[in-house]
């Protein structure tokens, strides 16, 4: 690890764990996409669920790419390294989440406005014709299990390595299993002859996805605009950032302290001349010392 590149030892194992979880995500969600595509027939609801699943792979892909770039060494062309790839990946992941919510809203609203009656007919397997809805429900039950498990495992890892991309991916997994449940309710509703059930259930879920996505997008923009580091799950200032500001002020008096975030790392700027002894990251941030990538002072 050098000043602006590489992953600190304190979180290296967790980052590798996160990467393994994302490879599993690609594998499992990929298999879900295949199973759903096989039974989707002409159902618009199932088609939306498949498109949503494909879009939900984006955060996992950008997490893997950004972790790869984070390890790349700084060079003459990129002297500050590639750590901001994580910030960019966060923006992409948040946009993907917003696209999923927006797509679901568009599909549901047009179905409701046009009063489209979804058709789910029969499928002949081994000489028996059964209602395709039963197969769709079975595929949807399968589609719920991997995101439910993976999303829950990812959340504590995302917290330990302060990774907003991984956290957004856990939100995407929540969106995945919730839309799966909504689609089961929808297909069951179609079975009962309620044409509006599917679209209404999807609309309800889409609104909660949009809420999560807008929150993530606000954080991503704040990060790219050098805003003070935000918490993992809200737009509030991160607790460790607040503690760092307090620690710097306690040490150097009531001077201006500015923090910004590059991916998972914090850069601090203190508005005073360099002191004779510069405090260590551990003194200032304790267990989260790895987060403090640089500390600068005003020139004499």
């Amino acid at each position, binding site marked *: 690890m050098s000043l602006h590149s590489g992953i600190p030892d304190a979180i290296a194992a967790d980052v590798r764990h996160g990467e393994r979880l994302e490879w599993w995500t690609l594998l499992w969600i990929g298999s879900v996409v295949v199973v759903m595509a096989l039974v989707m027939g002409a159902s618009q609801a199932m088609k939306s669920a498949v498109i949503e699943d494909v879009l939900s792979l984006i955060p996992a892909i950008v997490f893997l790419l950004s972790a790869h770039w984070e390890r790349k060494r700084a060079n003459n062309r990129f002297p500050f390294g590639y750590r901001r790839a994580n910030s960019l990946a966060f923006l992409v992941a948040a946009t993907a989440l917003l696209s999923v919510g927006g797509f679901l809203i568009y599909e549901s609203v047009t179905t409701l406005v046009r009063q489209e009656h979804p*058709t789910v*007919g029969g499928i002949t397997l081994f000489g028996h014709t059964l209602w395709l809805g039963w197969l769709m429900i079975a595929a949807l039950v399968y589609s719920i299990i991997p995101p439910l498990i993976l999303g829950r495992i990812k959340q504590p890892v995302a917290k330990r390595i302060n990774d907003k991309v991984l956290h957004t991916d856990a939100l995407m997994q929540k969106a995945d299993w919730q839309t799966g449940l909504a689609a089961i309710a929808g297909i069951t509703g179609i079975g009962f*002859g309620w044409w509006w059930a599917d679209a209404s259930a999807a609309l309800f879920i889409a609104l909660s996805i949009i809420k999560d996505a807008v929150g993530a997008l606000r954080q991503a923009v704040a990060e790219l605009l050098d805003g003070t580091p935000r918490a993992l799950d809200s737009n509030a200032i991160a607790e460790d950032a607040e503690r760092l500001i307090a620690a710097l002020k306690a040490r150097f008096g009531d001077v201006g302290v500015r923090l910004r975030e590059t991916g998972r790392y914090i850069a601090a700027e203190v508005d005073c001349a360099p002191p004779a002894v510069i405090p260590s990251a551990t003194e200032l941030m304790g267990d989260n010392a790895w987060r403090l990538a640089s500390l600068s002072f005003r020139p004499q």
Partner: protein
Amino acid sequence: MSGMRHSFALSFAALLLAGCDSLPRDAAGTTERIERMQAMRVTILPDTPDAHPALALLGAYARDHHARLKLVPLHGEHAHKALEDGEIDVLVGHFAKASPWQADIALSKPVARGEPDDKEHPVLRIARRNGENALILATDRLVSEGPR
């Protein structure tokens, strides 16, 4: 509390099992209307000289529901519109697998023959109104069990 949860789960499962046989239902109640009126309204598109196998299947369906077939003479796009609006129950005619009407009406598999390799090749099919899933499943069953 757990007893209550169990009884809720049991009654939900019972409801689901009871529903299995009666699902799916029609969004606009075509099957019930056929039974109530004892008539299934059928339009045969012009230039369908080989409509007989489809009519035989529909006749069997109608008999099962204590109804008879009532032929409604309509032409071209009027027939498609009438089906979409629920003025007729089924439409018999030649449709390609990749028919431009595919999204607007529910097409059956080819009647009395296999699916042609060419998706653009029109063959005898039964078109149903979208969302009438009980009627669609019942006629899909008759088509798949019928002669090839």
